[in-house]
């Protein structure tokens, strides 16, 4: 019974706050706007605090994995060290602490860059193996890809401005039209999901276990 009431409270809060935010977006009424602004301010603080839950969850899961000598327990140790050393340094000495800055600039930064740079090799490999003129569809795709690549290489546009014009035409007309359809579809999906959440039909965010248990 208590669990049922707790669920009802959570659903009611969701409905009231969600409905308030939607109404506030469309109307200009000072007291409602102020109330919504205060709730949003509070939400940013709550979201900030939620990171504590995230760190706690990661720590708990990886500690469990290490203690059980589960799959990839050594990377779990690396994970915990990577999370906790910068966290402790950041908390003790702020984000401007020299060690924190050093770790970010000289470790985190190049590792992040390297991860993204690997994409270049994948694209090259894909261009070599996958872009094949086998059918009409494939030919159109290969031609468009080649023209966009040439548009993105400024020297090509300098040699012949047509590469820029054709590339821009593909991007602004065909590509934009395709994406517009996707965006509208996503928007309709978002409205549907939002309505389902507000009406209590979608309750995944309550983190309930099977059988209605929390």
């Amino acid at each position: 019974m208590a669990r049922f009431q707790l669920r009802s409270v959570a659903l009611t809060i969701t409905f009231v706050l969600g409905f308030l935010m939607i109404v506030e977006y469309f109307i200009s009424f000072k007291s409602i706007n102020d109330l919504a602004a205060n709730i949003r301010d509070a939400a940013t603080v709550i979201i900030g605090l939620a990171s504590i839950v995230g760190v706690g969850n990661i720590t708990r899961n990886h500690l469990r994995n290490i203690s059980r000598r589960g799959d990839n327990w050594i990377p779990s140790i690396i994970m915990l060290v990577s999370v906790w050393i910068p966290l402790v340094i950041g908390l003790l000495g702020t984000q401007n602490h020299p060690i924190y800055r050093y770790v970010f600039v000289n470790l985190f930064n190049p590792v992040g860059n390297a991860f993204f740079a690997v994409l270049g090799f994948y694209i090259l490999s894909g261009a070599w193996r996958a872009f094949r003129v086998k059918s009409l569809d494939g030919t159109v795709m290969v031609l468009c890809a080649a023209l966009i690549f040439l548009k993105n290489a400024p020297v090509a546009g300098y040699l012949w401005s047509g590469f820029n014009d054709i590339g821009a035409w593909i991007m602004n007309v065909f590509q934009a039209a395709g994406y517009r359809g996707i965006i509208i579809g996503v928007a309709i999906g978002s409205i549907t999901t939002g309505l389902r959440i507000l009406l209590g039909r979608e309750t995944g965010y309550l983190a309930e276990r099977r059988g209605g248990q929390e």
Partner: protein
Amino acid sequence: MSSGTAISRIDVRYLFLALLIVSAIPIMSPMGLPMVVSPLTKKSFNFIEGLPAGSVVILDAQHSTGYGPELGTQYAAVFKHLLARPLKVVLVAFGAEGPQLYAMTLEGSTISGPPIDPNRYGKKYGTDYVWLGYIPGTVTAFAAFASNSWLTKTDAAGTALEQLPIMQNCKTVKDWALVVSVSGGQFEQMIAQWYSAYKTPIIFGAPGVSAPRLYSYIDAGQLTGMLVSIGGAAEYELLLKGPALAVSLMDVLNLAQILVVVAMIAGNAIHFIGRSKEKK
């Protein structure tokens, strides 16, 4: 020998080596290949040029280090432009890595280029620019910051906003003349919270992989401008008449893109040669 076999017999690592070489050569010995400024970059630049003196501009660092110079150089180029103009710049980060990226931009780094000293532009902290730090919450934070730009109560160093003259002219979204957000995502949410709700002009600094989905918003007038990838940053540096890191890296982009096109053509040529031999 089938065409598929012909392709697979060539070790793709030779291509990777070629990419490494064409990327390394221009870094070691810049070639200065020519480039043309795109209308999209020019539009963004001209909009900032046209802002009246004293206008408040929000500059958001929402990208991450993973994007490297692609977005780091955009942030640096726009920051320099805003400092060069008589504008009030409110710097904020809706991305968790923003504080570090802001510091790296001021100090100079491998992803943002040479250091930027606002004093060199005659700009005074608290009067002409302010750094509010990281605001968590993404879409909630966008909405909250729009209705209350004093959300953080203090700047990133802990100085109360009441003590900063620049913040007297920046209390809600209605005071903003422009938002420039250098970001890897959350574009639609920013448009919804800032443009759709308040008609605030927005310019995005976007990575090449995200830019395509934003052209629709440009066409619809919901987006004032956009810098696309490192090319956009390099074009911006040219417009500023101060070539920096992005321009120097354009040789790499040029050669790498052309190598990809060559790989496409060569792959197809081998495929067709192999197929014609099969028929014979």
